[in-house]
């Protein structure tokens, strides 16, 4: 009896160690399909921040930036896993401060994202595309 207890007790750590060695951490979940779009949206906000810093009196830039922030939050709410907070850097082809050009590129990106989205995401991405089209209507 004692021997069997001892044997079992002695074997337990070995088994535990074996389990530790064998059980690899589960692979991280694949990034959400909207990860790149999310990063582009975050970069777009940065473009606006730069423009607002250079032209603080431009109230329309603040309004549009806030709309993009609302879009970013809405995207984060549906992404799985949630975005990490380290968005993709802005494309080098998008000059900082060139908000109109950035907005136009962002509108096209939103249309593309909407076109390939599953039904449960199509409405939000369409909303973002439509909002960006409206921004172009009011930007100088």
């Amino acid at each position: 009896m004692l021997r069997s207890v001892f044997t079992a007790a002695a074997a337990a750590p070995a088994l535990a160690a074996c389990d530790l060695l064998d059980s690899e951490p589960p692979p991280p979940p694949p990034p959400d399909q909207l990860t790149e779009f999310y990063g582009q949206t975050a970069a777009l906000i940065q473009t606006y921040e730069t423009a607002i810093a250079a032209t603080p009196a431009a109230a329309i830039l603040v309004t549009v930036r806030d709309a993009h922030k609302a879009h970013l939050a809405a995207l984060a709410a549906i992404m799985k896993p949630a975005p990490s907070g380290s968005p993709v850097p802005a494309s080098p082809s998008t000059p900082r401060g060139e908000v109109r050009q950035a907005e136009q590129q962002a509108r096209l990106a939103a249309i593309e994202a909407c076109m390939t989205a599953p039904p449960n995401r199509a409405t939000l991405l369409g909303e973002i595309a439509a909002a960006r089209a409206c921004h172009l209507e009011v930007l100088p």
Partner: protein
Amino acid sequence: MTAGPDNVERLRSALMSEHAALYAYGRIGVHLNDAGRAEARAAEVAHRGRRDALVVHLDQVKASPAPADAGYTLPFPVIDETSALMLAEYVENGVTANWRSVLAATENELRRLAIDGYSDAAVRATRWRKIAGQSPLRTAFPGRPG
């Protein structure tokens, strides 16, 4: 389009809003200045194109497209430029909301039609507010209820 009675109803609602928009623009233009009339004419052409595309699509999926009503009750009297601009924005807001509701029921070419119909109506509503001297951007999510 994904088949289903709900999706067909959404498309029919979009069609009805296009019919109503065409009727409304017939009442709007006469109260506007030259630039406004040109804008109204361009909007009318765009709505006619979307209406026709919807009719063709609904025919293709064997869902009878409803014809336009003989007349529509306007939400308020249109007697001058101010009320005409209000009606133009009102109409475009309605079209915006209807196309938005279609998006999730579409794919491929029909989704593209929905995106364009939705965006264009939202832009025109923004433009009419601008022309009316109002704050042009009202929401980050055009056409969303509430």
